[in-house]
């Protein structure tokens, strides 16, 4: 059976249109995003690994080298098994630092533009034979099916279509850091296509060429040499070397790196792929041996590389060869598209940009976009040129393995990147150069010589034969040995630059700590960021990049916090890395957004930064580090859940901690506070905390703060935080602070209620006296009123009325005093200037209402105009309590002396009695609540504790001196109002 060339060309065209359609509907959002983010799609997109080499070449490889063909997939399986150790750390790095290619990754770690250039050039040279291989596979498959040599224009047209597809769906917009969902969907579709085609051909071989598994078994029994041919090369051939090569190729080939890391849409997918992708490869290889044996059974007279097509040409349905051809076409096209995109990105950032950086006046996005498109076209056409060079002289496998050995040279650099922080740039570059040199000598030159392109006269093939090694073993062993030895040796004798050390730290898989936590950005706002960047990347691009970074971090345009600006700087560098490559981005950021080297940063200033990074690296922590992280979280939770408001500040008064209690007390969320200076906090917290931070006192009790129109009371405490980064030479003013706020409002309210209760209790005790005092005048009033009924003399009537009025006034005075004393007032709001003498007199009047109060004599020594600033009602309560106690302690007829005078800026008030006195033991407990020496029912034990509290509130002191049997002297000292210093004096006894 043969096919018309036009039919196959039409089928190819139709297939490509379907591919365009799949990519287009995905990019347009017509396909649900969850479908594209599905791990199965990711796994299928990784199927780009299986190129026409796998599709066609595996059968040929198996025919010539038996089970060696499986090594190409077993190595991949080993690499994917190592996902948690190898692939996931790379994925984390590429995502976080927006590294879009292997060259980016290595240039980032070794902080070397030269590394990027070298990797890109080598990758380019190593990949061209592979691209050529794909073109050749397609043209050869056409000639197998049509039995005629296809015209060159066909290959050229095929290349043109792929260029168009790559540009439309891989380079449609900038920046390169964007994910291309359409491309992922199309590549996954291609993988599904080649898997289906190969399995169908395999099933056809099994059930049509043979009559089923039983027939195949019979055939194998009759041909034991077929099985022996599979196992013999395993014992003799470069089995381990090839497994190693495919292990490297699994993630270092440009197309694999691109689909696995750059186009990865979901982090979790890579874990799923760790087993699902090897399963995909296993399914793909199930068909290889049945096809090989079917071809042998049919005695096909063609290259075994094309048995996949050959078996379908014998007694098969007419559609089957076309399906087999489309499968091969899909394998080749997927490889070419993805490889070209990956290489174009590398060439742009590591070759074109460093060689000719565009004028900042130009639209850089546009420049990069068109540059990349041009590179895509150049690379595909270079592959086409290479296809001409080596057209007929190499097998598919040889061409593929040249690329595998090339990418294996990056393995030492990758291991250093992940697991050896001491590896140096010089070590990496020299090792890589040695590896490249060996590869050129052992593989590339022989290839070109065999193609007739050059003549070296080195008799290269004979060298590895003389050493008893296969060519791949020879090339792989010596290139990697020299590479590795130089990498390790030179790294041991050279030193890293500070930048390289920082990058090595960022790459370590066990910490993921981004940068050394010191320094602040010289720019103090986002506008200055834009202005700085505009000089290099242009105004529009700078504005877009700053805006993008602000959006990524969820920051506002007016951000001014130094810690946040440093994060913004890092984010911009990462974003630019995705656009211009890591090294170029690093240079631009260092030049345009300089760090302020004079500024010292405290450790506390970096707390948020550190914590964010630890949150990100949580699952990576193991062993002792994980335990320490748990401890850190525990301590942090203690601070956050502390029932006291906690606020920690840096030496320059920037808030680094604002716990939950503080949020509740202030009503201000931590997000609006952390990173800002204290004085920028909303009122009244800014002034309150900033003032307390600067105050000498480490504790301020009962500070009154008005919140939403209501008074609140707080106890304030503070302590300094020594900062190890600042050393021991810093004074207190250069250390951080932690401030604690204790809400005393409830306690204050409770105490006010208690004071009121105490006053009511006092009134209760006064009740009998009150009744008596009021009873006498009322009796007098009643008698006078009765007499008035019969009195006719106007003079006597007037006198009686006067007497009644006097008695009424007496009653009003008693009731007024009681009312004043008993009313409940709000705390702290009744401070006023009042005359102390009148307050003392009123207190005496009240005490005289009690039985004991009547039986003693009072002597008052106080200037009439001596004034005091305070709560008059509370001071009155103090006096009533002190006088009542003095009366209770005095015998009938005893004397109580009250002296008040001014001394310096204080007023001293003394209450002395000649009573029983207080024992020394009782004196120690006098101010304790509920302590009393009186009989049950006579005292509550709250009086003196209330006196003590009121004196404390007035910032005064109280002292009791007592000698049992002689009397007691209570001395109260209260601060006096300054205006009273000049008041005239007048003593009244």
């Amino acid at each position, binding site marked *: 059976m043969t096919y018309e060339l036009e039919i196959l060309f039409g089928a190819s065209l139709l297939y490509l249109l379907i591919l365009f359609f799949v990519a287009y509907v995905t990019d347009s959002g017509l396909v649900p995003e969850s479908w594209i983010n599905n791990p199965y799609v990711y796994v299928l997109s990784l199927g780009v690994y299986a190129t026409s080499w796998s599709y066609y070449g595996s059968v040929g490889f198996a025919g010539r080298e038996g089970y060696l063909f499986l090594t190409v997939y077993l190595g991949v399986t*080993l690499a994917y098994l190592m996902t948690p150790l190898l692939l996931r750390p790379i994925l984390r790095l590429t995502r976080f630092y927006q590294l879009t290619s292997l060259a980016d990754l290595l240039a980032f770690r070794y902080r070397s533009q030269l590394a990027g250039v070298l990797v890109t050039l080598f990758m380019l040279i190593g990949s061209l034979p592979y691209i050529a291989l794909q073109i050749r596979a397609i043209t050869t498959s056409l000639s197998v099916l049509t039995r005629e040599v296809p015209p060159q224009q066909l290959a050229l047209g095929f290349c043109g279509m792929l260029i168009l597809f790559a540009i439309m769906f891989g380079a449609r917009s900038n920046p390169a850091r964007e994910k291309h969902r359409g491309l992922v969907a199309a590549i996954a579709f291609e993988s599904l296509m080649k898997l289906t085609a190969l399995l169908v051909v395999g099933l056809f071989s099994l059930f049509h060429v043979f009559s089923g598994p039983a027939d195949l078994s019979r055939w194998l029994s009759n041909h034991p040499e077929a*099985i022996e041919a599979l196992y013999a090369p395993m*014992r003799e051939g470069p089995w*381990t070397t090839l497994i190693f090569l495919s292990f490297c190729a699994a993630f270092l080939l440009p197309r694999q790196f691109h689909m696995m890391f750059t186009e990865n849409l979901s982090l979790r997918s890579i874990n799923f792929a760790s*087993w699902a992708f090897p399963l995909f490869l296993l399914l793909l290889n*199930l068909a290889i*041996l049945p096809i090989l044996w079917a071809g042998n059974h049919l005695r096909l007279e063609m290259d075994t590389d094309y048995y996949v097509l050959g078996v379908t040409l014998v007694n098969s349905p007419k559609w089957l060869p076309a399906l087999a051809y489309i499968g091969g076409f899909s394998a080749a096209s997927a490889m070419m598209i993805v490889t070209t995109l990956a290489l174009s990105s590398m060439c742009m950032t590591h070759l074109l940009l460093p060689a000719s950086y565009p004028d900042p006046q130009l639209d850089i996005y546009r420049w990069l976009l068109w540059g990349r498109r041009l590179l895509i076209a150049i690379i595909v056409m270079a592959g086409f040129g290479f296809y001409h060079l080596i057209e007929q002289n190499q097998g598919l496998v040889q061409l593929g393995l040249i690329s595998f050995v090339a990418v294996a040279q990056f393995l030492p650099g990758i291991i250093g990147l992940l697991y050896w922080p001491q590896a140096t740039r010089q070590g990496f570059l020299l090792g890589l150069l040695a590896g490249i040199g060996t590869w050129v000598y052992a593989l590339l030159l022989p290839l070109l010589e065999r193609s007739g392109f050059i003549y070296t006269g080195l008799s290269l093939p004979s060298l590895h034969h003389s050493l008893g090694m296969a060519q791949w073993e020879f090339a792989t062993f010596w290139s990697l040995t020299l590479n590795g030895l130089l990498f390790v040796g030179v790294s041991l004798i050279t030193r890293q630059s500070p930048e390289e050390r920082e990058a090595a730290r960022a790459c370590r898989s066990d910490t993921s700590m981004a940068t050394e936590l010191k320094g602040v950005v010289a720019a103090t706002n986002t506008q200055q960021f834009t202005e700085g960047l505009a000089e290099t990347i242009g105004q529009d691009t700078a504005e877009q990049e700053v805006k993008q970074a602000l959006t990524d971090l969820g920051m506002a345009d007016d951000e001014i916090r130094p810690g946040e600006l440093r994060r913004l700087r890092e984010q911009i560098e990462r974003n630019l890395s995705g656009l211009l490559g890591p090294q170029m981005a690093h240079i631009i950021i260092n030049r345009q957004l300089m760090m302020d080297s004079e500024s010292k940063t405290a450790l506390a200033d970096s707390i948020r930064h550190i914590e964010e990074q630890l949150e990100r690296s949580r*699952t990576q922590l193991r*062993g002792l580090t*994980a335990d320490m992280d748990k401890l850190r979280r525990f301590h942090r939770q203690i601070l956050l859940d502390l029932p006291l408001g906690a606020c920690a500040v840096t030496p320059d008064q920037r808030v680094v901690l604002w716990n939950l209690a503080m949020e509740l007390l202030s009503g201000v969320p931590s997000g609006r506070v952390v990173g800002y200076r204290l004085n920028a906090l909303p009122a009244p917290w800014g002034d309150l905390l900033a003032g307390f931070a600067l105050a000498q006192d480490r504790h301020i009790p009962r500070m009154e703060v008005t919140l939403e129109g209501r008074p609140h009371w707080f106890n304030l405490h503070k302590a300094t935080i020594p900062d190890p980064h600042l050393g021991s030479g810093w004074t207190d003013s250069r250390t951080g602070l932690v401030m604690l706020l204790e809400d005393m409002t409830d306690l204050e309210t409770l105490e006010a209620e208690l004071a009121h209760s105490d006053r009511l209790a006092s009134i209760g005790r006064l009740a009998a006296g009150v009744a008596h005092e009021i009873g006498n005048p009322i009796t007098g009033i009643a008698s006078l009123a009765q007499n008035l009924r019969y009195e006719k003399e106007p003079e006597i009537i007037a006198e009686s009325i006067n007497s009644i009025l006097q008695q009424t006034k007496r009653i009003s005075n008693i009731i007024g005093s009681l009312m004043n004393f008993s009313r409940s007032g709000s705390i702290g709001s009744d401070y006023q200037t009042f005359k102390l003498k009148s307050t003392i007199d009123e207190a005496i009047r009240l005490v005289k209402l009690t039985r004991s109060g009547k039986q003693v004599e009072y002597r008052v020594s106080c200037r009439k105009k001596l004034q005091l600033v305070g709560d008059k009602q509370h001071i009155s309560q103090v006096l009533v309590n002190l006088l009542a106690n003095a009366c209770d302690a005095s015998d009938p007829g005893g004397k109580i002396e009250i002296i008040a005078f001014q001394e310096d800026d204080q007023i001293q008030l003394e209450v002395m009695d000649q009573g029983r006195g207080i024992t020394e033991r009782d004196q120690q407990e006098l101010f304790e609540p509920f302590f009393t020496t009186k009989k049950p029912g006579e005292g509550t034990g709250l009086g003196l504790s209330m006196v003590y509290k009121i004196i404390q509130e007035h910032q005064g002191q109280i002292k009791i001196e007592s000698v049992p049997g002689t009397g007691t002297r209570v001395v109260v000292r209260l601060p006096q109002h300054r205006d009273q210093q000049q008041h005239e004096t007048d003593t009244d006894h």
Partner: protein
Amino acid sequence: MPKTTEPGRQFESTLLLLLFALFLFTSPFTHWWANGQRIWFLPYLFWLLIILIGAWLHFRFRNHDL
């Protein structure tokens, strides 16, 4: 002795599986089973075994991934 964390166990399990795969495919044992073998699909069986263990590990530790 400190208790191994879940991520730690994942790493250990991965390493053990890798060593097992290396034992199957790149050790003298490989030459032993390849020598005079008449079951043609044996490499596929070993390959499938490794994949199945890998899948089991994935589902066992998937809550601790990333």
